[in-house]
């Protein structure tokens, strides 16, 4: 954590090196499921950024849909004991 902070402080003062950006972009590529299999030199930075934006929007949409679903499910189950059992089972994992 401290190494990351010191690195960003340096880069804000000095020039941003290409290697730093290439390294970060390849890390980003590994996170995105669509681009994970491909070789890093075959995928351009703009493609990685585009897929990142699409992926984040997709995750936002999933959160929204799940909140919808949960609001309907939790409205129908009135008992606290049901919810407590659910939570307990999840915490055990």
């Amino acid at each position, binding site marked *: 954590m401290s190494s990351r902070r010191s690195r*960003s402080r340096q880069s804000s003062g000095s020039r941003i090196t290409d290697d730093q950006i290439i390294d970060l972009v390849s890390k980003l590529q590994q996170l995105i499921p669509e681009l994970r299999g491909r070789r890093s030199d075959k995928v*351009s930075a703009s493609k990685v*950024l585009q897929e990142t934006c699409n992926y984040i*929007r997709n*995750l936002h949409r*999933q959160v929204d849909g799940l909140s919808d*679903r949960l609001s309907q499910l*939790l409205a129908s189950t009135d008992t606290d004991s049901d919810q407590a059992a659910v939570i307990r089972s*999840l915490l055990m994992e």
Partner: protein
Amino acid sequence: MCPHTSLKQQFLKKWIMGLQRCSFSKKNMSILERKKTIKLSADIAMASARNGTTRWSRALISNASKDGSDNRLVQQILGPDSNTPAVATTTNKARTRRASVCKKIVKRSHQIRRRRRKCVAAAPVKAVTSSISKHLVRKRTQVLKTLIPGGEFMDEICLIEETLDYITSLRVQVDVMRSVASACFSQS
């Protein structure tokens, strides 16, 4: 996999605690209100799991607190945790940081314009293709800045680092919410 599962549990605990602080199960809420409470407490749980170590998490909480109608709800969810004084100071710091970042951006754009004029004069074909790709990267970076909370004030390196962390946290959020939803569904 161990740190990942503990992050899930941390998120789940914070989320459930936030919902309980809103006396979620006792109030009679409309579906929309319920959804808003669920989503807001999930976002705040995700952000507070970072304990103020990342910029996006601080920006998310301060943005949620700024919104007048939701402010009371946010305070309820955050509860007696001492996160709120940190929020006030970061907005002031963000303002001065914003001013210095804006000046840097203006300076850098002038430099780039000067450099671009020189490039175009020298080698036209190569400059055109590289400037197109640079333009695309710039355009996509702008879009990414709108998606990450607090992204408008970050430089490129910081933005990508924050994106990496934000994506990991979003995934945890989706996973936990999905497992809660499927568990609730199988119960009812």
